């Protein structure tokens, strides 16, 4: 192993040879016997490792249990919201429930008017055609 290769491994895997890939670790040991510079590089990397070890993330059992509980609660809440019969189409609007609802309402409207359940107003009888509304980009005219 050359000193350049050694430096690359030190930068990658740090100052603990046990964390290096096995063959490289053995070659590094030979180089360390011969090179003062290699020993210095390894010592510097070990010092950095010691500092990095101060920032090892620690996760308590309580944190794990808390997260488990919250995940379960969120999944349960989503499941009960999906199962609510009064929700026609949860966001984002799903197509088929909405389309079915509109089709049924249209059919009911048609049946109600065609069977005469509701009186149909005659617009001409009410004199509404006399009111002409023109709505254009130049303004509104009556």
């Amino acid at each position: 192993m050359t000193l350049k290769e050694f430096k690359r491994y030190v930068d990658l895997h740090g100052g603990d040879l046990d964390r290096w890939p096995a063959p490289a670790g053995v070659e590094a040991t030979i180089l360390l016997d011969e090179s003062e510079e290699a020993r210095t590089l390894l010592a510097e990397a070990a010092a950095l490792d010691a500092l990095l070890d101060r920032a090892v993330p620690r996760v308590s059992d309580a944190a794990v249990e808390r997260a488990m509980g919250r995940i379960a609660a969120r999944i349960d809440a989503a499941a009960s919201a999906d199962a609510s019969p009064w929700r026609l189409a949860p966001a984002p609007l799903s197509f088929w429930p909405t389309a079915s609802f509109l089709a049924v309402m249209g059919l009911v409207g048609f049946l109600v008017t065609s069977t005469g359940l509701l009186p149909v107003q005659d617009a001409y009888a009410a004199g509404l055609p006399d009111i002409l509304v023109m709505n254009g980009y130049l303004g509104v005219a009556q």
Partner: protein
Amino acid sequence: MALLDEADDETLMAEVAAGDRAAFDVLARRHLRRSIAMAQKVVGNASDAEEVVQDAFVQVWTHADRWRGDGFRFSTWLYRIVLNRAIDYRRRRSFQPLDEAVELPDPSPGAERLIEERQMGAAVEAAIAALPERQRAALSLCYYQDMSCAEASEILQVSVSAMESLLVRARRMVRSKLNTVIRQKDGDQP
């Protein structure tokens, strides 16, 4: 339940895709601690990491049917979701790690040493927090989670050489930021 405990991740995930909550619970419990630890290094603190991981696991449950494997292990897929969520979260929020390091002075003899230790720890956290997000993720995976560069590269979806380059740059940048601390520490040693 005992059978589920013994099942591998991919078998459990197939059960989860079929709507099996018990399988999901086993899978979540198996990976939760490591996921939180991984996210913690990216977002910078424990409570945000918990939130990120909760989102990730809810996503796994909701989109379990999208899990195909495609030659990747479940853990690769999961950690990819966790890391991406952590990176997004971090982008949306600002982070001041040194605020947590404020200490009240204590006159007892060991207190000065303790404060010094905590300040050093906070300096390391700050140096890591100042890294670009992908370098921070590389350090989290390879150094703190002890993954090989090949494993980590699958999670970050980069080549192995790109992964190595991220890791090398991360270590160099942290070292340059902590040079004063390292020299001080060397000076302390007899």
